[in-house]
Every structure is written in C-alpha cells, then in structure tokens.
C-alpha cells in the first residue's frame, strides 16, 4: 500500500467506526429496530481483505454483522442506513433490515442470519463463476463460531473436491454470541481445523490492516489463479456485545483493555503520524468531516426517506408474471 492508500484506508476504517457508532445511537433512539450487530474493533478485517480483492467485481457474502462489508463492496452508506431505518430507499427496500443488507449490483450477495448459512452459498457462487469462466472469486466472511456448524465442514469438503474459487475469511473475535471460544470449541486456532480438507490455511493478526492486506493478497492471488479454495483466519475483537441485546457481562475488563490497546484505527493512525504522513490535527479534521457527512447526508437521507407501502407487502415473494408458471407449448 502506498502512503496515499494508507491515508484512504485510515479514513475508511474511521468512517466504518463512526457509522457503526451512529447506528448504536439510532438504535438507542429507537430509530432502528430488531437486532443490530456492530463492527467496531474488527474494521481491519473487511478493510484489509477488500483492499486485496476487487470490490464490485469479486462476490462477497457474509453473516449478520454485514453493514461494513456491504459498504466495502461499494454499497451506498445512505442506502445501508436507510435499510436499518426500514425505509423504501434502503438497500433491501426495508424488507431486510440490519442482518440482510444486499447490494447485488456491487456483488455484495447479502448478509444472512443463520450462523454458517453462507458457507455453501459462497461455494455455490464460486461454482457458478467457474462455470462461466469468470476471473472473479467468491469471498465469504464469517465469525469463528460459524465453524461449529456442519455447513463449515460440508462446504470446505466440496470446495476442495471441486477446486472452487472461494476464499473463506474467518474473523475470529473469540466469542460465539456470549460464549468464549475455548468453552465451545475443541480447537481454538481455527486454521488448524482446515488441514483436514487439504486447503491452505493461515492465521494472522486481524488488528493490523497492513498485515491483513498482505495475507489477503496471497490468499486472493491463490484463489484467482485457479488453485482452489483458501482459508484466512484473522484474530480480532469486537468492542461491543454480540448484538444490542447483549449486556456484554461475560468478558473480563482486563481482556477488553488489552484489545483496546490494539485498536486497528489507532495503530494505523500512529504509524502514519510517526512516518510524518499525517498530523494528529489532520486526523481530527478527518474525523470531524466524517461525523458531518454521516449526520448531514446519511442520517438525513434515512430520516427523510419514505417507508414501504403496506400495499406492497406481498411484492418480492415470487417472481412477477413468470411466463413458465403458465406453461404451454413453445
């Protein structure tokens, strides 16, 4: 990454942080309903991987902690926020909500709320890309706890047997909802579980965006070159609870303090300050500008957008007027 890239990456990660913090406020104000799973602490994961991939060209799929992955693919943050507000202008027209952001135009194939559900879907997208002779790859972001579902093993097996262009990114934040990984999972290092499928797997620091980028570059190049699936484990930490309904009482304060010293944004910022690329004042100005953008553009758009019409409640259940439903001889 060039110094200019690093400054952009810093800005994008700070934007991701402020966007999610503003979602928290909107949730507390009851502007956002349902479940809300936030990303602060994990920003370097999506950022670093998507720096190495081709956003908008490669296909990305993930679980319910999905706002930032969608934005990284090119989704308009205004449409993402409007979706959280349940508005017709939302990315899923208010039908999806926080856990189901979609932006198919930018190849963001959705957030799914069954833990482990996207594993085989990602392999299937990869199968389709292979059939079409595309140079795009399929990238699946999920948390460590998803690896205890059967779909993890079923999908790794099929991806290897059929040599599919899929990159599985495991954001290991050490907790499955409120249960610490060593209390639920026999092998804590997730990359070790992948060796049974003869798929290359590595574990790196998920808090250092430059480390993530370098590891992801190797991973993406491997998959894109036709060598088959790859597994990348990123060690990370989420600052908030699993969702907004989570009191976060199960984690030790020492542990939280330790991880807060490894904040992905602060680490990159300090590195850029030390290198003389930016000043702390530049950073503060960047932050102010982001906060202003979120308030004056994104929140304003979400607030002012219309809700879906109840008359269109049944729209999107099935295809409209599909000719083959009527049958006939052709």
């Amino acid at each position, binding site marked *: 990454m060039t110094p200019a890239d690093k400054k952009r990456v810093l800005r994008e990660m700070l934007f991701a942080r402020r966007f999610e913090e503003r979602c928290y406020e909107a949730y507390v104000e009851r502007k956002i309903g349902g479940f809300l799973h936030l990303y602060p602490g994990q920003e370097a994961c999506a950022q670093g991987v998507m720096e190495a991939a081709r956003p908008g060209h490669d296909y990305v799929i993930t679980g319910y902690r999905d706002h930032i992955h969608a934005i990284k693919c090119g989704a308009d943050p205004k449409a993402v926020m409007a979706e959280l507000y349940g508005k017709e202008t939302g990315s899923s027209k208010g039908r999806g909500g926080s856990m189901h952001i*979609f932006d198919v135009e930018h190849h963001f194939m959705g957030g*799914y709320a069954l833990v482990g559900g996207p594993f085989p*879907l990602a392999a299937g997208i990869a199968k*389709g890309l292979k059939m079409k002779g595309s140079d795009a790859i399929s990238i699946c972001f999920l948390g460590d706890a998803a690896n205890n579902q059967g*779909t993890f093993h079923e999908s790794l097996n099929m991806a290897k047997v059929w040599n599919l262009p899929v990159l599985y990114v495991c954001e290991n934040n050490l907790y499955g909802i409120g249960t610490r990984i060593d209390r639920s999972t026999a092998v804590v290092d997730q990359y070790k579980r992948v060796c049974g499928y003869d798929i290359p797997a590595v574990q790196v620091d998920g808090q250092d965006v430059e480390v993530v980028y370098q590891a992801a570059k190797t991973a993406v190049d491997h998959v894109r070159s036709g060598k088959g699936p790859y597994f990348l484990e990123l060690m990370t930490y989420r600052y908030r609870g699993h969702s907004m309904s989570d009191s976060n009482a199960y984690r030790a304060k020492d542990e939280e303090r330790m991880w807060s010293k490894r904040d992905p944004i602060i680490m990159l910022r300090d590195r850029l300050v030390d290198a003389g690329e930016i000043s702390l004042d530049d950073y503060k100005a960047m932050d102010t500008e982001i906060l202003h953008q979120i308030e004056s553009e994104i929140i304003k758009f979400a607030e002012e957008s219309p809700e879906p019409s109840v008359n269109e409640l049944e729209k999107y259940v099935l295809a409209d007027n599909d000719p083959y439903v*009527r049958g006939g*001889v*052709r």
Partner: protein
Amino acid sequence: MAVMMYWEALQRAQDEEMTRDPLVLVMGEDVGVAGGTYKATKGLYDKYGAERVIDTPISENGFTGLAIGASFIGVRPVIEIMSVNFAWLAMDQIFNSAAKVRYMSGGQLTAPVVIRSPGGTAHQLGAQHSARMEKVFMGIAGLRVVTPSTPKQAYGMLKAAIRCNDPVFINEHELMYNMKGEVPDGDYFHPLEGSEVARPGRDVTLFGYNISVHWCLEAAEFLATHHGIDCEVVDLFTLSPLDRAGIKASVSKTHRAVIAEEAEAPVGVGSEVIAIINEECFFELDAAPLRVSARNVPIPYNHKLEKAAIPSAKDIVHAVLKMFGK
C-alpha cells in the same frame, strides 16, 4: 406423443434443458457415474461431464446450499435429493436461503433452483425412508411446490421449473418412476400453478395429488360401476399455491368433496383444501367434506402394519359411501 416411463420423462426433460443452456446442471447423490438411483439422470454424465452432472458427497444441506448459491448468479441447478426424508437435512438452506432471498433482498436476488425428491411409502423402507413432506414445503412462502402425477406432467413441470425464476420443489414418488404414459414430442411446459380435472363427474369431487390421483381414479371407476356414483377427480398438481379457483369450481358443481392424501391428516393438504372450500364455497356444500389420509404414525416396517398405515382406493370408496349414507 411417445409413450415413456416417468423416469424417462424426467431424464428427457433434463437432457433437453442441458443441451439448450450450458448453465443447467444436475447434482445429487449418485446422479452421475451411477446414473441416478431412479435412473432420472441416466446417460447425462457421459454426455455432459462431471462439471455439470455432479456426484455430491452425502451432505444434503451443504450441496443444496451450494446449488442455491450458484443459482444466485445465473446457474440453473436441478438437485436430486434421493429421498425426501433426507430433505429435512437441507431444510435450513431451502427454507432460510432459497425461499426468502428474493424477499429479504427487496427483489435483488432470486434462487431459481429445482429440487426434485421422491416422498412416500414404498416397500417396507421403514420410518426414516417413508415419510411424506409435502405438507411442510407447501407452508413455505417463496417456494413453489408441484407434484406430477403422470409422465407428461413430470416432463412438462421439470422443463417449466428449470426455466422459472422461482425456487421449485418437485415432489415425486418412489413407486411412480416406472409408470408409463404419453408425453408430447416437442417442448412442452406444464403449468406450475393450477389443477386439472382428471375425470369429469357430477356427484362428488375426489381431490388427489401425485399417487393419490390414481387411487381416486380407481375409486371413481368402482363407485361408477357398483354404486352408480359419478365422481369427478381433480388432480391438485400444484400444492403451493393451491388452486383456489379450481377447487371452488369443482365443489360448486358436485357440492361434495373428499380429499385423498398419502400423508397423515394433521396440518396437511386435506386440511388446507377444506379451509379453502370453507372460504370460497361453503354454502355450495351438501355434505361435510371428508379427508382420507394416513394414520398418524411413523411408517412401520412390517408389511401388514405398513399397508394399514397408508390409505388406498378402498378407503376412498368407503368415505364416499359414508358421505352418501350407504
């Protein structure tokens, strides 16, 4: 019109669609090299190769999810799930991914997969290979459920399902793959919505689907010959959505209804059809509608017990005679 077996009709439909569209693929356990448990994919592996005729690991939820994911970007997968009992393992992907993705993406994505699977009681296969699951699938918004009763329907519905933009579940039956019937020679697409009158009649409507259509036809012949009762048989080839207009039209004509289903009665096709009759044409009725269905037990192994658990044409005859006070 050529006469062919049900499995041949399915094979021909897949062969034609695979020739037409290189993005059509078939996958399932033993569909490739082995040629398919019911021969429905016979010869396709040699013709189209391993990339498009895929022998899967025994991972129903995994390979169903994989097919759904491929369908997101234009692939047209036809999944064979060897027995509908195994489809329970794939319910997460069918229910949570395929059926809901169009809605929860605000219409951006669709999952045009076809899932073929035989359900039903065959010959002493025991509780875990004999279940009927259509009642579960027909209750899922966003999923089409059809159930062909003849080779013609099997051919035409599979062709239409492959080209349809919605996910379609095709409920087949293990005992019907060798059934013979006429199939149109050219491209024929059977409707994926509606019902059809398999035998016109005046006195009572017998509603059936898939194998129970044939029980109804057998019962109708017997009742006409021995009791002078003229039964209309309506083939509910679509279970989701059920054909409200067709049900109403027939009951408004005969004023009586018996619904025959191989599955157990609770929360089933019969209860849905009776609910529709109540909603659409209650005052047309001359008698309370009756259900003929399986006993509410896991299907037993012993042949006598198995036979006793499943309804037959004879049970339909008894129900009709009871309705007419005979």
